């Protein structure tokens, strides 16, 4: 049945966990594009036939017309599924721009197509450009503020970094008090966790 493979792509979106990416299905995607080529060849052949037949055989012309219509509709349908696959994934890639600072973690990067990687870079730059125009960092304060300092545990070796109020050695397993705004990005990236209680 026409359009079925394209729909499988959309089902993949539906089955993946909300807001998370699965690997870009290059194979299936290419197969759907191939089907589109098939439809357009059939469509053109039928349109040629309609011209050849002229108005002499209206019945045959009608049958060709509806055949052409079905190929056109299938193309439109395939396009919708392909676009939805790319667009809905792109919306998730947008959210990466709010969390990740330029360099994607390997396990995310390998799920992206090359165009998606480029889109991530471009859109992150667009976001950064807005922030620098306004001189305000919007990747901070995802959660309403409480105390200026929070207690965190370092989960991944980060090394010595310059924070807003101190030079800190963020060694794995270290437990320390950091300014909330310094810690927030590390926590979002999974490199630290907040300790409470």
């Amino acid at each position, binding site marked *: *049945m026409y359009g079925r493979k394209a*729909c499988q792509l959309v089902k993949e979106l*539906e089955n993946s966990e909300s807001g998370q990416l699965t690997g870009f299905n290059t194979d299936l995607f290419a197969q759907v594009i191939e089907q589109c080529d098939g439809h357009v060849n059939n469509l053109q052949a039928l349109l040629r*036939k309609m011209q050849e037949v002229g108005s002499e055989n209206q019945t045959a012309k009608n*049958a060709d017309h*509806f055949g*052409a219509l079905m190929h056109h509709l299938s193309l439109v349908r395939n396009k919708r599924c392909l676009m*939805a696959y790319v667009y809905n994934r792109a919306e998730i890639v947008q959210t990466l721009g709010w969390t990740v600072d330029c360099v994607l973690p390997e396990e995310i990067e390998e799920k992206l197509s090359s165009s998606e990687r480029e889109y991530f870079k471009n859109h992150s730059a667009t976001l950064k450009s807005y922030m620098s125009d306004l001189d305000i960092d919007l990747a901070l304060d995802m959660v309403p503020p409480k105390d200026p300092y929070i207690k965190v545990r370092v989960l991944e070796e980060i090394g010595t970094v310059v924070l807003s109020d101190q030079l800190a050695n963020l060694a794995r397993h270290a437990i320390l008090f950091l300014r909330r705004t310094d810690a927030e990005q590390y926590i979002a990236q999974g490199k630290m*966790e907040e300790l409470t209680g």
Partner: protein
Amino acid sequence: MANYYDIDDILADEELVPAVFLEAVNGVGLFESNEANRIEPRSKVELPFWLAQELHLRQAVSVNIPPCFNKKTREEIGADGAHVDLRSRCSYFYELGCKIVQLIGDKTIGSLLLVAFQTRYKEVLIKAHTAASALTPKFLSLLTKEETKLYDAAKSSTAAFKTWRMGGPRFQKAAVLGRKRKPIGE
């Protein structure tokens, strides 16, 4: 189409509906048995809604009422609507139903949808707020996509409220990066 990229709308359009061809069609290999690449008038087929709709509007096919809105389903919904397995009949029962009514104008389907939702909405509400999680899988397996979304929405907002009341970390790893590590205490 304001919902061009909407996953559920796309999947609802994939549901099959029975149709009869009114016209001959050349050059389509729609069915495996169809070697001549031609469909004869009066052929009975099942077409995905996205295709059936456009062909119906151009009078190339005539769409019939899909079985999930048939007499049997109507009677079952009338008798004990909350416990009818609508998912196995059509996970996009309401969405497809609305599309079919708009296409062929059979308002009895519209009324059926409303009656079904009236009885089942209540059940979703009760289950979402009270049922112990061990009891729900069977119930959940009966729900259509729309009902499941409603159930999940209620469940997750209640869960978010409970998490807040318990206290605990306010900052967490971003969802988009995956949540392999459970926060301490969960």
